[in-house]
């Protein structure tokens, strides 16, 4: 199962500032977080853990990572609801890094642009600022949270109406039938057109 080694590589390169062991330690909270997320989203209540201004900033960052184009982006997919519930649930503790880092970012926003908040800038200015911090923990953690918010089970608060999955062509069903994709389609058609296959219980060629 060599795949597992590559899986570790993805955890390593992908989570960046987010410690996988720290993530792993939080798992008992996940179910609670998922339930809270769904409840909050369905009731249209205000955020449970985020303040209004910081929610707008985090959402603005998420929306530069997966922007709204001719298809839905992080904003429409509801990533901010994932972030809200994750920091009060299975990623609890991460706000201790996120909040000071966001304050630093907003200090730069004020210094350069005279605005109080990142979310008040236009997209070009936002991208320029994010480009400067993209290797750092704020951006990497929000990138991770944005992708979770787009592509995790909707019960975690994001992936609203499964828009994230629809974006990439993932369909979460339990049952599939061949053909599965373009390159195996001919194979299955040929088999269907062929005479009935030989019963499997008949003698096989037993190798050499």
């Amino acid at each position: 199962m060599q795949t597992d080694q590559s899986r570790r590589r993805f955890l390593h390169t992908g989570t960046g500032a987010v410690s996988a062991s720290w993530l792993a330690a939080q798992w008992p909270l996940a179910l609670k977080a998922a339930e809270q997320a769904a409840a909050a989203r369905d009731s249209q209540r205000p955020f449970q853990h985020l303040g209004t201004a910081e929610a707008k900033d985090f959402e603005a960052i998420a929306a530069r990572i997966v922007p709204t184009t001719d298809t839905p982006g992080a904003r429409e997919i509801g990533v901010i609801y994932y972030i809200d519930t994750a920091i009060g649930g299975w990623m609890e503790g991460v706000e201790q890094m996120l909040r000071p880092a966001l304050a630093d970012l907003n200090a730069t926003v004020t210094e350069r642009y005279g605005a109080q908040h990142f979310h008040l800038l236009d997209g070009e200015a936002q991208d320029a600022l994010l480009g400067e911090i993209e290797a750092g923990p704020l951006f990497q953690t929000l990138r991770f949270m944005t992708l979770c918010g787009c592509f995790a089970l909707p019960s975690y608060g994001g992936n609203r109406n499964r828009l994230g999955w629809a974006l990439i062509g993932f369909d979460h069903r339990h049952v599939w039938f061949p053909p599965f994709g373009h390159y195996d389609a001919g194979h299955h058609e040929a088999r269907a057109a062929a005479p009935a296959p030989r019963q499997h219980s008949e003698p096989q060629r037993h190798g050499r």
Partner: protein
Amino acid sequence: MAGSPTYPTREAVDFVVIGSGAAGGVMARELSVAGFNVVVLEQGPYRRAHDFTHDEIGVVFQGELSLDPAEHPQTFRARPEQNAEVPPQGAGLPPAWYAAGVGGSSVHFTGNYWRFRPVDFKERSLLGEIEGTTFADWPLTYEELEPYYTRVDWEIGVSGAPGPFDPPRSRPYPVPPLPLKSSGAILERGAKALGLHPQVAPMAILSKPHNGRPACIHCGFCLGFGCEMNAKSSTLAAMIPQAEATGRCEIRTGCTVMRLEHDERGRIRDVVYLDENGVEQAQRTRAAVLSANGAESARLLLLSQSAQHPDGMANGSGMVGKNLMFNAHSATHAWFEEPLNEFKSVQCTRIVHDFYETDPKRGFYGGGGIDARPLVNSWPILFAMGGIAPGLPTWGAEYKRLLERYFTRNMSVLGNCTSLAMERNSISLDPELKDVFGRPAVRVTYEDHPDDLATARFMQDQSVAILEAAGAQRLWRDEVRPSTGGPHLLGTCRMGDDPDRSVVDRYHRAHEVNNLFVVDGSNFVTSGRGQPTMTIQALAFRAAEHMTKAARAGEI
């Protein structure tokens, strides 16, 4: 079904089996079906099919099928002269990675079920000594093991069809191959264009109902996940229910074994463990079967020191924990023009075994098999995090466009390769770090032999050639680097005829302790070609048969 027994701890049972994974599940079933009273001690929980999910956050990021690394830390070093350290935060999986729970890692495995070939058991004789290694022949042959491979096919449940390089088999596969996927079709096309011989991937996942279990419904969540259908042939699905149905097998979960204790004659008398409430218990037994995997079986022997066994139980040879082999590997990734939809169905449907054997012309020892699969890119979050080709944007509109296009259009080709056994690669007890139960942590020392890395690079070159021949739009390699861990935990209680060079004999009995057996991947003498589980289980069926005969003859 008979009721599950509850054995008193102070009365001896016939066997205590430590671990319920790929090997332990087979031992539990075989020994209880043979009429023995069996207690299985499993450190993880008892999950059933309906407990498994498609939750990528829970399973992948929170590792809910594995132990909590905060409670069970491990340390790693490349060389024995270095200090071992806990891998830095963010490094992900522990160096010796396995699932905890009834069924062990057979619950979350991919299910690649390659038999060894005859050559695997006698390469040392054929190829000669390799300096700096403990390269050796196995004390058994393919022909001796073949009947047990066939039992794995039929009793565990393997889907497949014969291939051109397969060793002889005494019976056909019980169920036909799983349906071809696009990654398999692409591998087939590329390999044929190069004059190679792609073949059906044998998989421990049912294509048709078999032994009262249902067929796969192609949900796509095999690798890393537990099967919600019992179609994956884990021991949880295939063996444990049959063991419990005898009425003679008790599965005790949440039980962490601390040490083995022997009597004045040197026979194992008690298996000392912490029960699910953390209370120390001792199960009296007539014999013990250690099937805890190549890391934990070795650790438990090293922890079981006594005046008779100052360096650990059954370790007079000093070989306990030595000769660790992870299986070297390579990964190559590609994008194609049309959708493959690799998130559907099982991981692998086609393999290439043309490069299986060592070829002296290459200039190094080793060989392997190639397979095609989505790898981790069938999971949406991990694909988004790491599935985009190097050098392309990782956020923004273009990144989003790449996600939209290539989630359905990517695949990977893996090289699954040999590892040479060396004494310097080992599982040992960390001298400082303790786990949550106060036991010395697992310390992994590992550095691939140069031939292992050369083999992996060679296999990656073949993978690239196949993907190019198949018309990949874009392809890229994961650089082959020295291993820092893995899920294949092989070699640490080697089997052999020489008590000075091995831990167990050819029938898995510890050379130094008459009623102690070690049955799992730790017994491997050589690594095979990267897919060990089928051989672990064939060995387990064989071991159980010999143990049954020996016990009935009063020889345990």
